[in-house]
């Protein structure tokens, strides 16, 4: 069943349809939020808020849009607002029980199912807007035109954020402590 069909059924009052949308996109939303916020609990909170707002606003969803893009617009707004409420300060990275420290090795050195903690830690030290731009561009695979529509920011500004964010991230990763050191 397509997203559009699930939206129609959600509007018609079928709770299972909305549950299916949540199941379909929860993991993707959570991955983005976790990389944006750097903490699992915060990511879970923000994603739940996002789905709540999406449900309350489902009547405003335009079927011509991709549901995922619409959802991620809400999600990026919620991440920004969360970071604002957190004082926009650099948050100390808190390693939870499931996190496994990895060396600042190339991607091939990160085993499947093992979290790239060094990357998430480095991301948390970026300017939030650069972090957002990098994740939308590379992890979500959006084109700049899509990013502009989602964020309201011009293409040249987004390109600059991606460029500077990439440079800063690379420098941070180069300085990351090696596990084996």
């Amino acid at each position: 069943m397509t997203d559009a069909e699930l939206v129609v059924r959600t509007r018609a009052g079928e709770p299972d349809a909305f549950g299916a949308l949540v199941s379909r996109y929860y993991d993707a939303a959570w991955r983005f939020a976790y990389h944006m916020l750097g903490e699992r609990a915060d990511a879970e909170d923000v994603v739940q808020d996002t789905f709540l707002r999406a449900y309350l606003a489902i009547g405003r969803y335009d079927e011509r849009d991709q549901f995922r893009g619409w959802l991620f617009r809400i999600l990026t707004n919620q991440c920004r607002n969360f970071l604002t409420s957190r004082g926009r300060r650099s948050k100390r990275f808190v390693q939870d029980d499931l996190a496994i420290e990895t060396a600042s090795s190339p991607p091939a050195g990160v085993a499947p199912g093992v979290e790239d903690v060094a990357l998430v830690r480095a991301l948390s030290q970026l300017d939030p807007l650069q972090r957002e731009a990098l994740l939308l561009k590379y992890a979500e695979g959006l084109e700049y035109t899509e990013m502009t529509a989602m964020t309201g920011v011009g293409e040249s500004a987004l390109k600059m954020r991606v460029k500077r964010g990439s440079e800063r991230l690379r420098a941070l990763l180069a300085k990351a402590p090696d596990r084996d050191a």
Partner: protein
Amino acid sequence: MTDAPLPFPSGDEGHDPFADEIGERLRASYRSLPAAPAEQGERVARAVLATTMHAPSRRVGGLRPRWWWGAAAAALLVAVVARPWRPDLSRREADSAFAAGRNALLPSGSTSEEVGGTVRFEFALPNGARKVSLVGDFNGWDERATPMVQQHGNGSWSARIPLAPGRHDYAFVVDGTRWVVDALAPQAPDAGYGPTNTVVVDFEALP
């Protein structure tokens, strides 16, 4: 849409090995992150649906006002945005706070460019408001400068103002004190005054 690994985005970054490296590392981090447990999504769906008894309406104007919409929307905004009681690292269960009402609706705004260089701002507020004004970089963020007009007494407000092409940040002020943004519209970076929406005006795009 699936969560299959995404192809490398097209564009000039594809020729930059430096960007290639960062991009691949980010995508690898996504792939390597253990999947969120399925029950987590199910719990979220249950939590959201627990706050509602009926399907959301397609249009604000098509709903009959009920007294608790206002309370629910206010509770939602406080619970989700402000969370003044929230400790920094624990609020997983506090989301039940938005269960203060059912069928709550979010404030919603929209903009439309018109021939002649004006932009029409519309704002729908589920609960009643005595007055609503539009503030933005175009009027010095002065809540007295651009009052909005209520349409038909149904919680829908509008204002029409001339704007230069380009990006403008704006927000709505309810009853002279409460700044509200549309959670679904693009938001501008916070300049220290809280979230604001943003619109890019381009009259040349008009049909």
